[in-house]
Each structure stands twice: as structure tokens, then as C-alpha cells.
């Protein structure tokens, strides 16, 4: 089965709001593995499966899933830093999106990391900040 087909299946189920399908986490994990093993430097296709997985995790509404989503968010940010190097406004959005992933039920489980991401986003938006690799 090609990665495109699995990706399409996962995305279709998310569009249909079937995030709770029991086999969906395994499917999206398989997709991430396939994309990771592909001999490709296409960042777009490495980023999207992580976004799909983060979406599926957040639908679970539990702290362990939230932590896992944040960890995947860090992986995604590393890829986005490269993909969005010429688009600082979007990099700032990505930083804020990751900062939000460190919250569960309105409380941050890593306030220091969330603050650092917010700080970097603000610095980029004010035009005075350089994106760093953290």
C-alpha cells in the first residue's frame, strides 16, 4: 500500500470526524514510518502525517495523549523551521501552535517551554528576532 493511499484514508476519516476509529492511530503511525523511511527531501510530506497524528491524539482528550502531541509538535516544528524559513509570519504561527499544544484543560504542563515558544514568536513578529533551533 502506498503512503498516499494511507494518507488519503486517514485524512478522509478526519474530514468525516471519525477520529475515534480504533485502527486510526495504527494507520497514522504506519504512515509516519513510511514517510520517514522514504528517500525524499520533500518536507511537506514529512510534516503532514505529524499534523494528522497530532489531530488524532488531541481528539482523545487525555493528558498522556496531549504530551505525545506536544512531542510530535516539536518534531513538526523542526521540519517547519526549514520549510517556512522564508515565511517568518507562518513560523510565528507554528511556534504559537506548539505553545498551545503544551496546554491541557487550560493548564500548561510545560510552562517554561510554552513561554519560550511564545517569546520567540513575538520576537519574529516584531521583526527583531531570529528563529532558533530550540
Amino acid at each position, binding site marked *: 500500500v502506498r503512503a498516499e493511499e494511507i494518507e488519503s484514508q486517514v485524512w478522509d476519516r478526519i*474530514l468525516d*470526524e471519525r477520529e475515534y476509529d480504533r485502527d486510526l492511530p495504527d494507520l497514522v503511525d504506519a504512515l509516519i514510518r513510511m514517510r520517514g523511511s522514504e528517500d525524499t527531501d520533500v518536507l511537506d510530506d514529512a510534516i*503532514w502525517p505529524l*499534523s494528522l497524528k*497530532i*489531530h488524532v491524539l488531541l481528539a482523545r482528550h487525555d493528558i498522556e495523549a496531549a504530551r505525545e502531541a506536544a512531542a510530535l509538535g516539536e518534531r513538526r516544528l523542526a521540519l517547519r523551521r526549514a520549510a517556512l524559513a522564508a515565511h517568518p509570519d507562518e513560523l510565528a504561527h507554528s511556534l504559537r501552535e506548539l505553545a498551545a499544544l503544551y496546554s491541557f484543560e487550560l493548564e500548561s504542563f510545560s510552562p517554561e517551554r510554552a513561554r519560550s515558544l511564545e517569546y520567540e514568536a513575538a520576537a519574529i513578529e516584531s521583526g527583531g528576532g531570529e528563529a532558533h533551533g530550540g
Partner: protein
Amino acid sequence: MAGERLFRTFDAARYQGILPSLDELRATRALSAGAHALLASLLEPAPERAMGDGHEALRRIVRHPALAPRVFLAPKQISSVIEFVVGRTCFEQDGKWSLIERGASWAVLESSVIFLYDDPWFDELLNGDRPGVWDAPYPRGEAAFRGISHELLGELVDRVRAILALDLERRRPLPEGLGMQVIRAELAELLALAARARGHGRGLATQVLL
């Protein structure tokens, strides 16, 4: 919400026109020039009401035509854009509807729905088994809807009138406290909506509210 049925006036021709762009959004790759131009045309004026984060995400897509949406947007944001584009393009008032407010471009049927299903013609229509009724491929999930072609509206009006002419009280026992006038008022709203759609050369869209 549970089991109410929403009807809205709907422009099926415009929907067919934007379908290739919706397919492109679903693909999450960089958009063609045509799709980009369509999306850019939908940015102004800003919507009067909050519509998820579809408008904001659309603005970001338009600002970065060379970037694939899959790079910088989350799945939920892309589905919100799809919903926004359909709402703005094919429905009146950006697709606005309300359970509380009454409006000229929508009708919400609750108590009267059962009387529609008693009519075999309506039963087929609402179940999507009648020619001229089709499932719209976008948006999906709770926002998914079924299109009812303009050509069916004349018969739809006749059927609603026929239902209204029946002795409804004798056909079904009503839940306590529910007046027949509520049911008649809902059906009258559907009649007015269908008349409006016919007058504007539109069809209807319908969906069950979950």
C-alpha cells in the same frame, strides 16, 4: 441538537463551479492559480459572524500561494476553510442558520419532521433516494449536507401543502404540550423557504442536526 432537520437555500450551480477548488483544498498541496484566485475573491468583506477559524486560515492560504497548506495548517483548519468557502459561495448570509432565530434563508424543522417522513415522496427525498437529490462531497462530518435540485421544488411545495391540508391531529398522537400550530408553523416556514429558493433560481440543502 438532536434530530432536527435544517433546510437552507443553496446555489448548486455555484457549488459545481467551486468543486475543483474544494478538491484542491482537500489535496492540501499548493493551489492552482484558478483556485487561488477563487479563494482570494472570498476574503472580502469579512464575515459578519465567527465561522470557525476558516476565514483566518483562508487568509493565510491566500497570502502564501507557493506554500502547500499541508505545511503550515492543521487538518481542522483546512476543513474549516472548506466549510467557509462552501458557506460563502453557495449559501445566503455565508450559510448562517440558527435554532433560536428565524431567518428567510433557512428553516429548522423539529416536531414536523415525522409528518414529512410519513409521505413516501418526502421519505425518499430525505433519504437521498430520489433523482435530483445528491450528497455534497464537501464539507464533511457534522456540516455535511444533501442538495435538493431546483427542479424538485415545485413538487416539494405541492407535497408540503398536501401535508398541511391533512387532518394531522388524527394521523399521529402529539407529544404532550405540543400544539399542532407549532407543526404547521414549521411546515409553513419550509414552504416559504422553498418559494424563496425557486424565486432566486436556487435549490435547497438539507442536513440532520446532530
